[in-house]
């Protein structure tokens, strides 16, 4: 037997669950378990909970969060954070709306809006890279500015009355009689599968784990970290814009009030989905499960008649609890 083998078997001697799986796997496992248990409990009390129409409602209500969480996952994997999505989301709904009202063709309006989202992401990366401030601060400033801009360009009242054809993005779908499966759900599914796949398998996308896990070593390996972060924040901004376009179509209106506390819900979903705020860990699957869990909680609150105001408390508490759990697991593993 090789020495290395001996050493390896020594390593695995008496390892528990904690060592056998990565932290991320453990957290996703715990989350999946929580989802199942929660679903069963709610289902026993409200038999309609797991019906297809209700599941459809859950998904549609949390579609923006789910799409934005895709970008946030990569941002957090690189040890960053993006608060500005909560500003880009209503901003792009408004922009696409205004463009349409001004008579722009639908594809052009959408493309300009997505580009604007990406551009704001580039500003985030620029501030954070150039002034060496934590992305938290940079994106906070941009969030603040966008909130103001959103009010100014709308004058505080919603923009509405878009061309009929625009409805296809967020309203139309396949009619199943009891519910309407919107095309926008497919947009989300396609994006999630594509980004999930790339993040697992593409050389360039995988660099995000390397940058988040050991930035110094990434630099030593010749990775242009700053340039990569431009990519990451631009992607995050563009995805927030996608969500904004969909929601504008869905409600046939765009308001500066969209996306209150959205950044918090998205970050919470990504973190309970196993992403590490210190970087290096996270997955699309985990984040999507995280969004699902939050969507289920909101839905169950709405059904149970408990004040929906509890939602924010629960989400905040979940964020803290999952950070605590991650911290505890990390320490237990280290011992």
């Amino acid at each position, binding site marked *: 037997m090789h020495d290395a083998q001996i050493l390896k078997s020594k390593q695995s001697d008496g390892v528990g669950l904690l*060592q056998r799986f990565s932290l991320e796997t453990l957290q996703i496992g715990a989350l999946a378990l929580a989802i199942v248990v929660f679903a069963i409990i709610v289902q026993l009390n409200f038999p309609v909970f797991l019906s297809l129409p209700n599941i459809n409602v859950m998904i549609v209500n949390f579609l923006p969060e789910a799409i934005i969480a895709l970008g946030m996952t990569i941002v957090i994997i690189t040890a960053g954070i993006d608060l500005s999505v909560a500003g880009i989301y209503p901003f792009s709904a408004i922009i696409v709306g205004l463009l349409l009202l001004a008579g722009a063709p639908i594809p052009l309006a959408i493309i300009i809006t997505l580009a604007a989202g990406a551009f704001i992401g580039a500003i985030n990366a620029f501030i954070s890279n150039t002034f060496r401030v934590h992305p938290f601060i940079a994106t906070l400033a941009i969030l603040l500015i966008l909130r103001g801009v959103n009010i100014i360009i709308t004058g505080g009242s919603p923009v509405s009355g878009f061309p009929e054809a625009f409805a296809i993005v967020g309203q139309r779908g396949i009619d199943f009689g009891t519910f309407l499966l919107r095309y926008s759900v497919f947009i989300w599914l396609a994006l999630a599968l594509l980004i999930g796949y790339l993040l697992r398998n593409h050389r360039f996308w*995988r660099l995000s784990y390397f940058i988040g896990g050991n930035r110094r070593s990434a630099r030593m390996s010749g990775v242009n970290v700053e340039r990569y972060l431009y990519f990451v924040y631009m992607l995050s901004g563009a995805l927030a814009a996608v969500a904004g376009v969909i929601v504008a179509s869905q409600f046939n209106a765009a308001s500066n009030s969209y996306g209150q506390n959205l950044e918090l819900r998205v970050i919470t979903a990504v973190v309970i989905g196993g992403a590490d705020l210190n970087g290096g860990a996270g997955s699309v699957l985990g984040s999507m499960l995280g969004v699902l869990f939050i969507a289920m909680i909101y839905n169950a609150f709405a059904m149970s008649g408990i004040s929906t105001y509890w939602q924010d408390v629960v989400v905040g508490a979940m964020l803290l609890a999952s950070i605590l759990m991650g911290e505890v697991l990390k320490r237990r593993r280290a011992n």
Partner: protein
Amino acid sequence: MTPVLEIRRASKSFGSHRVLHEVSFGVDAGEVHALVGENGAGKSTLMNIISGIHRRDAGEILLNGESIDPTDPWQARQLGISVVFQELSLTPNMTVAQNIFVRREPTSALGLVHWRQLNDDARALFERIGIDISPTELVGNYSVGIQQIIEIAKAISFDAKVLIMDEPTSALSESEVDRLFSIIAELKQQGVAIVFISHKLGEVLRIADRVSVLRDGEMVGVVNPSHSNQDEIIHMMVGRSLGDLYPAKGVVSDEILLEVEGLSHPPLFRDISFSLRRGEILGIAGLVGAGRTEVARAIFGADRYSRGSVKLAGIKLDLKSPRQAIEKGIVYLTEDRKVMGLFLSMTMRDNIVSSALARFTDALGLLKHRAIVNESLRAIKQNDIRPRDDLLSMTSLSGGNQQKSLLAKCLSANPKVLIADEPTRGVDVGAKVKIHQALRDLANRGIGVIVISSELPEVLGLSDRVVVFREGHVSAVLDGDNIAQADVMRYAVQ
């Protein structure tokens, strides 16, 4: 035969501090060329120059006879020079194979990674060097020793013609060292030129075909291990006179001030026992990583220890924080003044009184500014810190004056015991002499001083007694006026 890698008359200075002076060095294909020297002799700088981290001031680097000029380690690796640094470049959250081939994964035209191919490549690599590590395991699940081997595998995977290893065995267990050496033998067979940098002379003699000795930034000689022995190499490493750098020794009382008994915190240190007498300077010698700093921090309450006891003047201490240690009269001068010692953006005055604010506080918790000013001016005078303006920011001081301020900071807490960890690191000779004199003055005033230093002449020149650490335990306690450097080195390395 042309050497694969040749350095010609390379020089490098940091500011006014000369770290390398016209060093020439070469390594042939299939050869293990060891580079040895004391801490600070210039080994790491030489390596940093070769890998492009530092730019050389003068000299030439030749690879297969052609002049090269790498700008970073990645580029050096592309050229065929792979450096394995002491600090690992792996990330624990990725698998072994992902770590080794990051940015070089086998992919389709679209950039999608062929995972099976990747893992097979890793397996083939491991086979080539004769080890058995799972490519799909997370790196974080392996011990530091195995991670070191993975790091070496990564270095080789660049099709390295030259492999440079900096203290590769410092984190390895004995069987892992054997494993590493068989890998090195394997690579030698394959014609790789290997530079092996180490303190551990036993290992060096076992593996090296040639040994080059650096001292104070100069190459002092190349020896053939089969015609040499450790003593000869040690003499080459340390050979210089003590000169007048050191103050006269003092009179040590018999009264034991600090007694450390059986202090253990595996795997960092085990069974450490020694005592310090009033008025004594006790030197602690040993290699970097031998556990000296860890023991000092444990005594100071900065880190926990698992077993053993520390007694101050016969009374057992159970310190839970540095604050309690300072209250009891034990202070610690950190080895890394910028990271752990000083408050660089604050003023000299703020720094000098930082450990002693309790002394300058009234019953309401308000500070006595007048007393603080007096203390800082007194300390500046006593330690001869320049310039004598205690409102200057610490960043505007030279290294030597920063170090003197750090000493002043420790002293303003009125200690009974001072543990000085590398008290003269990175300072010029003038400041060194003054710091040495200050330490001796303290001892003469009845304070017990422990000096941890990687510079052997300093430990010997300054200390009344010397404790030698090796791999986390005390390997010798040497007493008397004429302790030979070679003796200390022998206890430290063997």
